[in-house]
């Protein structure tokens, strides 16, 4: 079956609007994706029919809500091929997931050890580790990148060594689109017995993930980047690893027993799910996963790859256009600067023409520093974008440049 982008677009009513009198061309998908009707309906349906607090409730609505979120937990497990659904923890998002692990590792990391990240991480996969290193005295290291925005693995043995407690890196860079050599890095980490965490912010919407094939210890997703609701994330962790970490937050149902003097913690996944969960978000995310699987993540990735290639080739014809991050192995992100213009000005003028892009540092200041730039313009693609939209984008970009020069 061929990829029917028009019928997909019909599932995203938000796309069908005008901005400053021009049709919206939404190319800010790496920041957040739009939601299909199925997700919006799942949310309404929940609140119209079976909203209740979950777990421990004996009444029917509470049972329905509990069943619904536990079913999603199982779907997430299957989606990323985890071993058991108790290894799937619902969080607020990737930032929350990574902080949970970085906090917990405070109990197991010593000052002789080091944490390894990379030069192309999102702030959410930098700052929590800096905080951990500050608390424990451990050293923060990083794998460097080259001028294509690719990680450099030569010398990796010097960086990831027997004192490495954790190697944490993203699968796909949100600022550059680079697809990182996950297997090679994991292999080095495994060799020295380091724990591993993959930030899957940009994997979720664009790539097939199999945590057991990777044999990664922790993996994390944000619902809102995967066509699901805001305020929800997933933290996958191997049971044996999650069990040795202390919980990040206390309260609610994450305990087994509480006296005013002390508490004992509940088992997985509850130990890491303090407080009333984001029930609606979990249910909406279930609908988003289902929708992604209906279209097929491989079909989506193939479609986006075509858009990326077409936009790169077309825009490269523009005088002074320069791609930032030109790895051969890229997904869905076209980050660029244009000689003699400021990204910010381009963003404003594209918006005036209906085209939504992100400008700036994309929460990856170290990358920008390395390229010695203030920021880029980033066009990022999703399942519903079209070749025609790329044409509109390119035309709007050319017009903006003419005005700015």
């Amino acid at each position: 079956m061929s990829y029917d982008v028009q019928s997909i677009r019909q599932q995203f009513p938000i796309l069908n609007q005008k901005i400053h009198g021009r049709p919206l061309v939404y190319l800010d998908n790496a920041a957040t994706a739009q939601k299909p009707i199925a997700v919006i309906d799942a949310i309404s349906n929940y609140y119209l029919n079976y909203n209740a607090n979950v777990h421990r409730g004996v009444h029917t609505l509470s049972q329905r809500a509990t069943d619904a979120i536990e079913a999603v937990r199982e779907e997430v497990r299957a989606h990323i091929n985890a071993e058991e659904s108790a290894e799937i923890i619902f969080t607020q998002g990737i930032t929350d997931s990574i902080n949970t692990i970085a906090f917990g590792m405070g109990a197991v990391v010593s000052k002789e050890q080091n944490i390894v990240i990379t030069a192309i991480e999102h702030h959410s996969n930098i700052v929590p580790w800096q905080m951990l290193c500050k608390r424990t005295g451990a050293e923060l290291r990083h794998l460097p990148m080259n001028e294509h925005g690719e990680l450099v693995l030569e010398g990796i043995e010097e960086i990831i060594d027997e004192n490495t407690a954790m190697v944490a890196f993203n699968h796909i860079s949100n600022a550059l689109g680079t697809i990182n050599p996950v297997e090679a890095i994991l292999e080095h980490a495994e060799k020295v017995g380091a724990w591993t965490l993959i930030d899957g912010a940009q994997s979720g919407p664009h790539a097939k993930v199999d945590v057991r094939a990777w044999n990664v210890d922790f993996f994390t997703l944000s619902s809102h980047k995967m066509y699901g609701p805001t305020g929800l994330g997933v933290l996958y962790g191997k049971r044996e690893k999650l069990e040795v970490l202390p919980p990040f937050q206390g309260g609610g149902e994450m305990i087994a027993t509480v006296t005013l003097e002390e508490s004992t913690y509940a088992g997985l996944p509850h130990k890491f799910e303090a407080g009333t969960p984001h029930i609606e978000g979990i249910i909406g995310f279930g609908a988003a996963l289902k929708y992604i699987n209906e279209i097929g993540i491989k079909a989506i990735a193939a479609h986006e790859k075509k858009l990326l290639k077409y936009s790169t080739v077309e825009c490269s014809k523009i005088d002074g256009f320069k791609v930032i991050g030109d790895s051969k192995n890229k997904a869905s992100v076209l980050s660029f600067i244009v000689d003699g213009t400021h990204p910010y000005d381009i963003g404003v003028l594209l918006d005036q023409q209906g085209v939504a892009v992100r400008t700036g540092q994309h929460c990856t200041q170290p990358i920008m520093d390395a390229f010695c730039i203030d920021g880029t313009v980033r066009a990022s693609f999703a399942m519903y974008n079209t070749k025609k939209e790329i044409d509109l984008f390119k035309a709007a970009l050319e017009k903006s440049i003419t005005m700015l020069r």
Partner: protein
Amino acid sequence: MTTIKQRQEELVKEFEFFDEWMDKYHHIIEMGKSLNALPEQKKNDNLLVQGCQSKVWLHAEKSGENILFQADADAIIAKGIIAMLIDVFNNQPAKEVAVANLGFIEEIGLKDHLSPTRANGLMSMIKQMKFYALALTD
């Protein structure tokens, strides 16, 4: 000599000429381009206006009772906006700048049309200009 009020009226008239915001932006950009750049050595961090998304440097000095502004920005739209403000305020009595009512921003529809962050930036620029004016009023 034109007053702050007259200069605003002129600006409003200039902008009325354009129907489309793309054209208004074009005009703002042109104003940015024609603003004399600050020499590189003058662009020090003390002159940065806090609260703008792009970098905006603003320099003020006194000339008799009047205040003279120089400015620059790394993004051209921000530069155009500060150019408009300089157009209104430059070489005006410091004590009038300090208390001036800037109706033209409403009339042009600038504030409504800017994003919250950019509108904040605009407000920051105005605040900084008035702050200088106040400091330079005896």
